[in-house]
């Protein structure tokens, strides 16, 4: 027993992280490696996998549908995330003040984030319906023309951005609110004494103070948005046609509907490097600010 505790003492630096290392190996490294190996095969599920080297990658580079997927992924992410950032800052600023019913309002605004994404998506799909949906009813009662929402190719991604923004702006607000509350009140007092307007103290005190929180929120949200699957698949299935088909949705269809597991794995490697690239880029920015 003594020798055991001595052994533990001596090797604590290996033993203590062991569970975490094992978990990472089993849950992250192993699937990524398996996925990479799979991407080297032509594997029609149900048939026999055939090793084809890098042929899947070659095909993916020349596949217009893959480029369409990448374009849609970026379009969706880089429309949704900045919008959510602006809204998130606005909501956080609002909740950084005191007003009656603030506690309740703060809880309510977090609801979209905690609801089940598929349930949310189904409801939005109903609301988007051009003939029977409630959104067009609202538009009409405001005297505005009806919209086709997700039923029209060039409106599909903007409509999905709307859902994503509704769902995730509160998360950015939450992160930024925490940062705002840690800005010392003295800074604002000093600014006010110096005659700064509300806008000036927001722009010159609040924003610089929460800069690093903004970048963290951006990283989290961008990585998540690049991988968005649930709301897109449930609401449009990537349609009309392939107008809102992101890389993730294409990979899902390729693997689970068309049964080309090898090619789907290749697409996911593409997605992984895209997400990784953006995350690294944002991380570099974070270290600069």
């Amino acid at each position, binding site marked *: 027993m003594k020798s055991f505790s001595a052994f533990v003492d001596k090797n604590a630096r290996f033993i203590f992280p062991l569970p975490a290392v094992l978990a990472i190996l089993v849950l992250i490294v192993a699937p990524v490696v398996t996925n990479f190996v799979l991407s080297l095969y*032509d594997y029609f599920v149900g048939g026999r996998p055939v090793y084809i080297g890098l042929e899947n990658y070659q095909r993916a580079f020349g596949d217009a549908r893959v480029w369409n997927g990448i374009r849609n992924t970026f379009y969706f992410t880089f429309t949704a995330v900045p919008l959510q950032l602006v809204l998130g800052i606005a909501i956080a600023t609002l909740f950084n003040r005191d007003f009656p019913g603030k506690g309740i309002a703060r809880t309510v605004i977090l609801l979209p984030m905690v609801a089940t994404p598929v349930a949310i998506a189904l409801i939005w799909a109903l609301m988007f319906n051009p003939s029977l949906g409630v959104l067009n009813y609202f538009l009409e009662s405001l005297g505005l023309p009806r919209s086709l929402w997700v039923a029209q190719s060039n409106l599909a991604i903007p409509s999905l951005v709307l859902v994503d923004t509704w769902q995730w702006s509160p998360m950015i607000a939450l992160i930024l609110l925490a940062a705002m509350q840690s800005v010392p009140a003295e800074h604002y007092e000093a600014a006010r004494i110096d005659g700064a307007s509300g806008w000036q103290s927001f722009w010159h005190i609040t924003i610089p103070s929460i800069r690093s929180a903004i970048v963290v929120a951006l990283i989290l949200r961008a990585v998540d948005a690049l991988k968005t699957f649930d709301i897109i698949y449930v609401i449009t299935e990537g349609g009309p046609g392939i107008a809102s088909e992101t890389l993730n949705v294409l990979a899902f269809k390729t693997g689970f509907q068309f049964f080309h597991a090898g090619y789907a794995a290749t697409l996911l490697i593409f997605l992984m490097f895209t997400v990784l690239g953006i995350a690294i880029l944002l991380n570099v920015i974070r270290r600069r600010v």
Partner: protein
Amino acid sequence: MLRATLRMAVLAAVALGLATASAQDFDWRRFEGTSIRFMMNQHPFTNWLQPNVQEFEALTGINVTLEVFPEDQFRQRRILEVSSAAPTLDGYMVMPGQVGAQYLGAGWMRYLDDFIADPTLTDPDLDLEDFFGGALGTFQSDQGLFGLPLQIESSVLFYRADLFEAAGLSGPPETMDELMAYAAALETDTVAGFAMRGRGAAATSQTVNLLYSFGGSWMDEAGNSALASPESIAAHEFYAELMRNYGPPGPANLHWAEVTSLYAQGQAAMIFDANVFRPIMEDPAQAIDVVRENTRYAPLPAGPAGSVPGVLVWGLSVNHASQNPEAAWYFIQWALSKESQESLLLFGVPAARGSSWENEEFQATAPADWIEASQVSFERGQPDWNPPVIPVAEVRDAYGQAIVAALEGRDIAAALQRAATEVDQIVERSQR
């Protein structure tokens, strides 16, 4: 003398006995003691079958094990056992429109013609002619019959008699030209003249009805995609004109749920979709009063090549590796006999035998025009509501993109050409 007469009588009796025996050669108890295993989809047919299996076991002395799984799992387990030639699996439920090309290509379904030709193995009351033409046709290849149908569905036209009357139209459209003219006459600001599916891959099972009625098909005789044929282009130009001019807004978003709810809410005067959606139009929780009171049914209007609806057929097949194919065939004959099919239809599953649909008790439960429209469609039905290839979903997806292009007003011929090229590539890749 007496003895001679007796002997004659005995001889005659024996001869007579032999004769009757050969006429009654088919014996339900011939495979008494055998055990068979069938793999079943968790489908209303299976719900009907399970409590009735004992009847078959009592009749034949054959032991039946039914292995039932929800559809996704069922399909996975089935392909696993069938492709590994499991000898203990004797038969299974199958939808040839889904996996026919794959299963036939691999030889996984046993042809039954030798059994049918053998009077000792086939119930004289089987009566293949009794099955709807479209249903039996689904289980026929160039090489013979590879199963029997158990249920059949098809698409029909749902239309509003009150709106027809108000527009001065009598009776349903019988041709595609009439369909277009009627849709134009019925169209108002709030009610679409006509609606059917438009949502890419999901729409293909419906647009294929137009494709075949205009003389087109999935594949040409050489096995290449025929989606860009002149007939196909004509069919899709018709479809796009109909939907873009007289359909609801955003037709590229319409799945069956959208199509049926538009109609149930009184926002479409005619729709074309599966006949099994009739209960929606009779349900006060889903359909408004005028719809419930005024819905009528008709078969698909005829195009240049006639009215050729697709039929969706489930059936039973014998596993190629079965060690008891005869006993499995017995089970299929019993499960799909006239009595069984009639009882199935009364249970609420659209049985595949024509005689079942003549049942009076059943006829009292459904509108006469729905029954007639269904029967006509079942008889005419062509089995390939899905492309007759192995990568079904991928081909439907490629074709679906052309459908969306047509609905969004892009160049139809070019979109179909692109789809055809893609389909050929997909099929070629799947054959490597």
